[in-house]
């Protein structure tokens, strides 16, 4: 009997019940996959880290090198340093690496080095997280290159350089904790010691040193770093702290995961709004039924149970469905992570963690039902039989008389009136439209921001066409001056600016001297996006990167003073602004050329330039690349594409996914909403038809009402995604150690294409679901 009532109820409200089920299932799918993906991500990063044992501090260096001096430092700092190992990188030009049918790696922006596996730590692993052990004649290729160039195991790489020629068979993927991410600017190929020695002997490539330190658990990073500087040890290159590697790894996947988590949270909101909507729209009818049941003498408890059971059953089915489906979603998303981080994501933990979402959502549904049912309890049988809950209680003043309407068609006015008089119901639809729009627009904003040329400025790269880096060689100063002179006279160069980076001692918050990198030059030519304040414009000003300004850097705010030694003289510099930077370890600073150079600690030279519209960019780049042997010429667009390409592609998939979810949800809810409204209003509709309103005129009323909430819903949703979304994304970014960002929206997409698309899709849904049945005799409804 009990189950029969439940089944009857479900059968009678097929569409409503099915829609509620779909919503709950959808919320579970997204909630589950998000928890699953996060768990996988954290677990696999942790595992990879355990196996790879990344270094805590890495100094890159090109030039002469004396291991003895480093060893002396290690001996002196035994309480901090656990292990030290220097990896000898053989840097090979991409153009010297041949593969497939006449292809080379010339177009990569990554630095390529060939290395031998370390002995003590910073291991490069295979896809099973085992230390790579490469035989002679074989090479392990970084995953990034395997994917970028579509290589597979067994393919042959050929090195051709200055008459030397050697072939390697690709025997393994190289999974490299430190340099996996496209955001890290170099990649390590692992070969056998014998092959390495042979290449070294033939002077293939350029030698670079990775002087790596593994600290004790309580070792102090800053002490080691400063001792290293003060000892005057080799430091021609950036210094990289261990956690930057984790940040790179996380940034590549976490951004995507966070957006998915946000979407699923929002879907949970939509699902509960939808349940509330269902309750509100059906409550009159439910009340009448409850009245009948009460009159039949069925106890309150049983009545409660009928309704609770129904929603419990629906939530359970939806939970199981969503839980199962979530694993499909996870498989699709994890494809990338499996390769870069860990191939073994099995383990029961993910099944347990994924249970969290369905259980939480089930509880929300049940709690919600209970609170609604609580209200029904207070109503007597007779009250339940005649009352209309929307109109119950207070006698409101009569609003919106028909004569107030001056310009609108009466049907449209009636629709708008309906919204105003039943605001409780329409309000929910309105919220749902806002949330859906948010779901669609937020990923689009993130995607457009990442895709915009401006985004490179968030990574610390000025917005320019081409960037030329000069590596330190004996002729660097002469080369630099020659380059500047040539740029000055080259009419194809629209503008350019030179920057020199040196290492300067600077006073830390606790009064010690710490070495920091300061780039000097004119920063007004290629402005960076500043998070706060402005670029250094006058003498005596300095700007800091977000990481350098934060507590574990110099700990400064805009307007504070930084004391820096230049050539032994102390200078007071005012912080003019803070910018985001992920280059060179993330801790950088910028100051005008008037600061002066630290001549014995010049690290590198860089030139940014814009090429005139009429000139051929790639020819220009090739020209400068071949003229200056020590230069590395990169197109910024290409650079951004290669470093950000992967994450942008993933974000693109989410844009499509988010839009699809938003549209499906809006279509479903709109259809459901109208179906409920029409059945609720059946008698009023019959009265209007008896007066002589055509079905079309009545449809127009409902169309006008729904559109009246859809349009402002879209607008508010877009505004929320623009402003609230920016705050949310910034918070997420800073929780990962990056800094807040500004969205770069594309107005015609958010304000034209999206609204039009939604209006058309929802409009079609509306007109399809808003059909007044005219086949039936009017009297059937009027008499009942």
């Amino acid at each position: 009997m009990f189950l029969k009532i439940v089944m009857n109820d479900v059968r009678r409200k097929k569409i409503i019940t099915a829609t509620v089920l779909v919503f709950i299932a959808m919320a579970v799918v997204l909630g589950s996959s998000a928890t699953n993906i996060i768990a996988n991500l954290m677990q696999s990063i942790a595992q990879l880290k355990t196996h790879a044992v990344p270094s805590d501090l890495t100094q890159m260096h090109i030039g002469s090198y004396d291991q003895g001096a480093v060893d002396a430092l290690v001996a002196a700092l035994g309480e901090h340093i656990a292990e030290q190992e220097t990896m000898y990188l053989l840097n090979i030009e991409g153009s010297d690496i041949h593969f497939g049918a006449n292809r080379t790696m010339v177009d990569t922006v990554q630095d390529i080095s060939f290395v031998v596996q370390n002995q003590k730590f910073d291991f490069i692993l295979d896809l099973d997280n085992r230390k790579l052990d490469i035989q002679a004649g074989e090479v392990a290729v970084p995953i990034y290159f395997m994917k970028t160039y579509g290589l597979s195991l067994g393919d042959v790489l050929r090195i051709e350089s200055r008459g030397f020629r050697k072939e390697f068979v690709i025997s393994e993927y190289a999974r490299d904790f430190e340099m996996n991410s496209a955001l890290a600017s170099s990649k390590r190929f692992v070969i056998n010691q014998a092959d390495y020695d042979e290449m070294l002997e033939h002077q293939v490539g350029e030698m670079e040193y990775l002087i790596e330190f593994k600290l004790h658990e309580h070792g102090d990073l800053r002490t080691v770093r400063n001792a290293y500087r003060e000892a005057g040890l080799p430091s021609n290159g950036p210094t990289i702290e261990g956690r930057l590697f984790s940040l790179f790894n996380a940034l590549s996947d976490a951004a995507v995961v966070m957006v998915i988590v946000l979407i699923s949270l929002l879907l949970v909101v939509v699902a509960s709004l939808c349940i509330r909507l269902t309750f509100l729209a059906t409550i009159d009818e439910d009340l009448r039924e409850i009245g009948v049941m009460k009159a039949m003498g069925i106890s309150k408890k049983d009545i409660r149970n009928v309704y609770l059971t129904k929603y419990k059953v629906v939530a359970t089915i939806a939970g199981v469905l969503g839980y199962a489906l979530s694993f499909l979603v996870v498989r699709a998303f994890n494809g990338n992570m499996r390769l870069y981080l860990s191939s073994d994501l099995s383990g029961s933990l993910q099944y347990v963690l994924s249970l969290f979402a369905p259980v939480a959502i089930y509880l929300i549904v049940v709690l919600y039902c209970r609170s609604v049912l609580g209200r029904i309890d207070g109503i007597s049988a007779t009250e339940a039989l005649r009352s209309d809950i929307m109109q119950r209680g207070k006698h409101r003043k009569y609003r919106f008389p028909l004569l107030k309407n001056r310009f609108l068609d009466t049907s449209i006015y009636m629709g708008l009136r309906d919204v105003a008089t039943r605001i409780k119901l329409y309000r929910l639809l309105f919220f749902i439209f806002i949330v859906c729009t948010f779901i669609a627009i937020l990923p689009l904003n993130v995607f457009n921001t990442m895709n915009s040329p401006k985004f490179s400025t968030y990574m610390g790269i000025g917005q320019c066409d081409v960037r030329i880096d000069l590596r330190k060689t004996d002729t660097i100063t002469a080369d630099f001056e020659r380059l500047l002179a040539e740029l000055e006279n080259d009419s194809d160069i629209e503008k350019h600016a030179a920057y020199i980076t040196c290492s300067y001692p600077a006073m830390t918050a606790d009064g010690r001297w710490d070495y920091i990198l300061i780039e000097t030059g004119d920063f007004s030519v290629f402005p960076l996006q500043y998070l706060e304040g402005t670029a250094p414009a006058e003498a005596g000003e300095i700007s800091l990167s977000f990481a350098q300004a934060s507590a574990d850097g110099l700990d400064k705010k805009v307007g504070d003073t930084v004391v820096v030694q230049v050539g032994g003289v102390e200078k007071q510099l005012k912080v003019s602004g803070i910018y985001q930077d992920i280059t060179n370890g993330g801790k950088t600073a910028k100051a005008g050329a008037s600061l002066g150079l630290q001549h014995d600690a010049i690290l590198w030279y860089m030139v940014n330039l814009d090429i005139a519209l009429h000139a051929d960019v790639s020819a220009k780049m090739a020209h400068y690349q071949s003229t200056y042997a020590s230069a590395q010429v990169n197109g910024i667009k290409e650079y951004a594409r290669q470093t950000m390409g992967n994450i942008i592609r993933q974000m693109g998939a989410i844009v499509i996914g988010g839009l699809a979810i938003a549209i499906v949800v809006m279509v479903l809810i709109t259809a459901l909403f109208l179906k409920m409204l029409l059945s609720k209003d059946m008698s009023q509709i019959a009265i209007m038809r008896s007066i002589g309103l055509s079905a079309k005129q009545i449809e127009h009323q409902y169309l006008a009402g729904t559109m009246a909430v859809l349009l402002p819903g879209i607008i508010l949703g877009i505004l929320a995604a623009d402003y609230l979304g920016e705050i949310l994304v910034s918070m997420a970014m800073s929780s990962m150690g990056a800094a807040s960002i500004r969205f770069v929206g594309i107005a015609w997409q958010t304000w034209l294409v999206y609204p039009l698309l939604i209006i058309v899709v929802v409009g079609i849904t509306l007109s399809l679901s808003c059909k007044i049945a005219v086949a039936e005799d009017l009297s059937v409804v009027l008499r009942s």
Partner: protein
Amino acid sequence: MRTMLEARNVHKKIALDEDNVLHILRDVDLRIGEGEFVSVMGPSGSGKSTLLYTVSGMDRITSGSVRFMDQEIGSLKEEALSKLRLEHMGFIFQDINLLKNLSLIDNIMFPALLEKHVDKKAVHDKAKRLMEMTGIATLADNSITQASGGQLQRAGICRALINEPAMIFGDEPTGALDSKSAAEIMTILAEINSQGTTVMLVTHDMKVAAKTQRVLYMVDGCIIAQKHLGPYVESSDTLVDREQELMNWLVTNGF
């Protein structure tokens, strides 16, 4: 006298399930002339309401023909039929059927405001006039929960009249009212009829039927007899006579 409404061989069947078909109207013929005041009587369940709904186009007939103002109703599309109802027919129901979200005067004006480019002021004036005529002018801005049954029925009549229909249909409009209210409603309807509007009423109240010009008697879905009473002139003597005459006739027909 010109024909306002003409029904021929009208059948109405309703399929209850696959085997059972309810035959509600069986071969009904009916002609109502312009300006007539006709009532339909008969036992409960004889099909009086169904007749009213079918000849006014609210329900579709199963077979036969219904012509209203020289138009074949069955051949009209939904939209045209609605327009015909809106412009030329008025309805008064036993359970009133006002829209619950509109005030009384808005309920009354609503049908008139559906026409494009109406003079809203004129509509308002007309609604006011009708409300004065029916004695509910003070209730204009009341909601439908703030009026008695009789007052609501008067508002219903005002709404039926707002578009100046050619014909008014009433399905037991006095059925739910006390006798005093019922008498007042009938006075109003007689007044409307005297101004030229055709009226067709379903009723089971002899006092009501006695005030109409012609009474049809239905049994089991057929009009089995009719009685011409002639125009009624207000006076209690004649009313008693008419009631007596009607009573005798009804009894001979098995009332």
